[in-house]
């Protein structure tokens, strides 16, 4: 019988299951003081990898701080921070091969940085200048880079989830020894795309890691108004896939879980779900104010679980980092980001001709006609179109 359930036990009186029936443990390796739990099994990590992870965290903190400032000053229109979730994002990115494909939601700038996206590239995107790989077509933070196998961000939530299944399935068909990682928040897991993507990955057997950043809030909606079940992890089990819940503020736990998830996905051509329990310390975006929906006390409590601080203590305990080095990394990136902002905001916007490029592989006659008419119009009213009138 092809639709037989896994569990063959039968009962003879009504007996319901509920969310408490699923016991989902949470993986923790690193303690608050920077020591590891007794008997904890560490991920594969050496000093070089640890330094790169930490460096990426600091860059991201500095980037977030400076760009939020730039948004407040009106220099960019929008920004989203990664603050509080760095361990979830960097720890998972660090477990991957550079040819593994990343499909992010929007708050994973740290994984893009880990891959090597330069400070200038970040700025070019945020300032929509002529060097932006995305040609100034999307809001700030919608990064993408084919060279780094990092798919361009799409604003609608959850759309990348079934796409990740497709990318991973193509890796399998091509015989590539690579996986795809798909990031999303617990809010995006309410979208139909989540169900579609996970179910297809499990049934079609695609080597994809679904990485849920369960960060407490979807804009202002807390998790208790987002799902009634046992978080997101229980759903992975329901779809028939390997699932793990980790402390998302524990760099070593995230790294260990993702390293093993990757190995499993490759070996078995099968998906894995990781639910990282974390907390969005910042606002959802520069457009909202969390003081309107959560308490200062709650935020202060989570400040104590700062994932970067915890990892830093481990590095210091290991003798791999000194306080003085830490200060100088911050300083280096503050200067670097500031300098890059100054350069990027002075570069011209993309040429107007690009407005009709990439709609199709080549512009259609209708598009060419519309551009011609637009240019004629702009040349009549150059003052009304200051960004492009000088370069027609």
């Amino acid at each position, binding site marked *: 019988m092809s639709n037989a359930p896994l569990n063959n036990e039968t009962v003879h009186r009504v007996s319901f299951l509920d969310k408490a029936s699923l016991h989902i443990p949470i993986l923790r390796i690193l303690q608050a003081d920077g020591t590891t739990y007794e008997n904890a099994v560490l991920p594969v990590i050496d000093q070089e990898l640890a330094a790169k992870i930490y460096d990426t965290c600091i860059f991201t903190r500095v980037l977030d701080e400076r760009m939020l400032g730039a948004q407040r000053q009106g220099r960019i229109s929008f920004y989203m921070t990664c603050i509080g979730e760095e361990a979830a994002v960097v720890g998972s990115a660090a477990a991957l091969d550079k040819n593994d*494909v990343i499909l992010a939601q929007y708050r994973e700038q740290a994984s893009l940085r880990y891959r090597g996206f330069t400070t200038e590239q970040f700025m070019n995107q945020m300032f929509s200048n002529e060097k932006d790989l995305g040609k100034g077509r999307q809001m700030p933070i919608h990064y*993408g880079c*084919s060279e780094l196998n990092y798919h361009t961000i799409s604003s609608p939530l959850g759309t990348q989830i*079934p*796409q990740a299944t*497709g990318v991973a*399935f193509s890796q399998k068909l091509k015989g590539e020894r690579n996986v795809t990682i798909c990031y999303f928040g617990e809010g995006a897991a309410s979208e139909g*795309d989540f169900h579609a993507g996970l179910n297809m990955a499990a049934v079609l057997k695609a080597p994809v890691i679904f990485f849920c950043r369960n960060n407490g809030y979807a804009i202002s909606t807390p998790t208790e108004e987002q799902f009634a079940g046992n978080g997101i992890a229980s759903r992975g089990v329901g779809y028939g896939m390997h699932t793990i819940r980790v402390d998302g503020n524990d760099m070593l736990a995230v790294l260990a879980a993702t390293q093993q998830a990757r190995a499993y996905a490759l070996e078995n051509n099968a998906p894995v779900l990781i639910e990282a329990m974390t907390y969005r310390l910042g606002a959802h975006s520069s457009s909202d104010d969390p003081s309107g929906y959560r308490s200062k006390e709650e935020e202060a409590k989570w400040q104590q679980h700062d994932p970067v601080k915890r990892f830093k203590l481990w590095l210091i305990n290991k003798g791999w980092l000194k306080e003085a080095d830490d200060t100088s990394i911050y300083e280096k990136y503050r200067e670097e980001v500031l300098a890059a902002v100054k350069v990027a905001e002075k570069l011209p916007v993309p040429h107007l001709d690009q407005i009709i490029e*990439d709609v199709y592989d080549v512009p259609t006659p209708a598009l060419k006609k519309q551009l011609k008419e637009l240019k004629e119009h702009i040349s009549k009213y150059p003052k009304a179109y200051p960004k492009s009138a000088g370069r027609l």
Partner: protein
Amino acid sequence: MAQMNMLHAINEALSIAMKADERMVVFGEDVGHFGGVFRATSGLQEQFGRDRCFNTPLTEQGIAGFANGLAANGMTAVAEIQFADYIFPAFDQIVNESAKFRYRSGNEFNVGGLTYRTPYGGGIAGGHYHSQSPEAYFTQTPGLKVVVPRNPEQAKGLLLAAIRDPNPVIFFEPKRLYRASVGDVPEGDYQIELGKADVVKQGSDITVLAWGAQMEIVEKACDMAAKEGISCEIIDLRTLSPWDVDTVAKSVKKTGRLVINHEAPLTGGFAGEIAATIQQECFLYLESPISRVCGLDTPYPLIHEKEYMPDEFKTFEAIKATMSF
């Protein structure tokens, strides 16, 4: 040349394309061993294996999202949406994702290798959920190509072109004609250029424009008109987005009159777009207002299908009214 029906022609196109391109995969609900509910994918799994022609779970948004991912990673993806009526759960993945992949990324990524095949249209006693013609929803989305064939020969050549086009294409198949339309189909591999209308019959008095299954209808109407001494020029638009303004405008400048026929409801239908553009291009040549013969602004009905349809009689009346304006 071999005589075959449209399903056979489509099946042959898929098989030819899969042979020529080992990156091509075909998938959707029931398309695997069963060959699809209409059997368009019959035999493909046997021929190319389960990795290249396979069933998916029953999820249109999943199929479209999965297709986007495959194509973005360099595969040629041909996804079947079992009925065009069921394309709406996939609407976001198609209009926000497939259509904008290239533009939003500055061509860092694109899904050019993606084709959606989907049976559309009425005339099969299908009621509102097996009869819709949703092409206009997609023509307003830059980045998509929208193609509708009218017979087996066109279906094979256009589908091969759609699969190989470096842009995502929605290929609407007139299901009423799947088995009903039989004709000569060239053997082997050939393509019909997308974006080009086909002047099916030359005429001098009036241009009659349609696409897909309605081509049969307008041909019948034009035969009726011929008996009244009216010479119709018949055009099959074939590609709705981007559409061939030049061919249509050239014809209307010659005849001075235009009747547009489509199965979808009148309001917001693609005929409105054509009428507006041709009015702009050909204003001084027009002898009468452009006329539209379309479905009613109702959901597609079951028992009153005949009444709903923009059939040959309604089209014939529109031709006569336009001629005597």
